[in-house]
């Protein structure tokens, strides 16, 4: 019984404090309860990058975090450029997007994009280092 008390108390604290989802993995054992980023390979050559928000985060922040995670993955893979697509079809037809997709379910926004990591620049692609620099300099969003 006592073993469950700490996780329950922390869960209650997070839920009651009304914190917007921060920039962290959705699989984080504690903070993941509010959502976070998640990446899945295997959509052909694409990686699906998602960010799941709670009811306290804005759509803008969710799409910004999706883009930031995409840039982080590009850096990890040593790719200087990356392109994001709103669907696999748009990736097939090489129609890059400037913003990730988003949807809202139960007042909780989520963002996602299909990401192609690139060695060379193509029209519409993001530069990895510049994108990372832009987002890491931005302040965290205050709770609504």
């Amino acid at each position: 019984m006592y073993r469950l008390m700490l996780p329950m108390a922390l869960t209650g604290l997070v839920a009651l404090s009304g914190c917007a989802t921060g920039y962290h993995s959705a699989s984080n054992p504690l903070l993941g309860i509010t959502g976070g980023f998640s990446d899945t390979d295997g959509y052909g050559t694409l990686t699906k990058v998602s960010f799941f928000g709670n009811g306290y985060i804005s759509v803008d922040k969710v799409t910004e975090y999706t883009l930031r995670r995409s840039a982080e993955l590009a850096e990890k893979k040593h790719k200087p450029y990356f392109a994001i697509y709103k669907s696999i079809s748009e990736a097939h037809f090489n129609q890059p997007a400037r913003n990730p997709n988003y949807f809202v379910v139960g007042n909780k926004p989520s963002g996602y994009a299909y990401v192609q990591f690139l060695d060379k620049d193509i029209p519409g692609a993001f530069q990895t280092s510049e994108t990372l620099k832009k987002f890491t300099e931005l302040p965290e969003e205050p709770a609504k």
Partner: protein
Amino acid sequence: MKLPLTLLSTVLLSACAAQYVPQPGEATARVNIRETGHLMICHAGKKYSVWPEMGSDYAILPANVPVSVFVNRTVGGTVAGAYSVTYNCSPRLGISLIPDSSYFLNFEIQESKCRLELYQESVLSPVRLRPIFPLTAQNC
């Protein structure tokens, strides 16, 4: 709580449908259903349940004939599944597969609507997935 409910609804929904088993000599194709998991198909006027092959993301589906694919999914909430509001959606898709080809069935939420998309695995596509134009889905 969500997982048992999803499993229960899946079992209940698939209880009336036989599992699809290809007949000897029947044309088939492989479809990666890792995004959808269990699905139902309407084939030759009958409803069938389709599961991935053991240890694989791929399922065998009939080819050379129009088939309707149905999925029942729970969406919403967080990945961790806590204090979340969830919704059910049941997108459907009409398809006709090329025998002995491989496909990827994608589940997507766009503009707050669930939908299914079919792609053929192809080295001719720059992303190795070629979009397939859907047919009208038929009811059984």
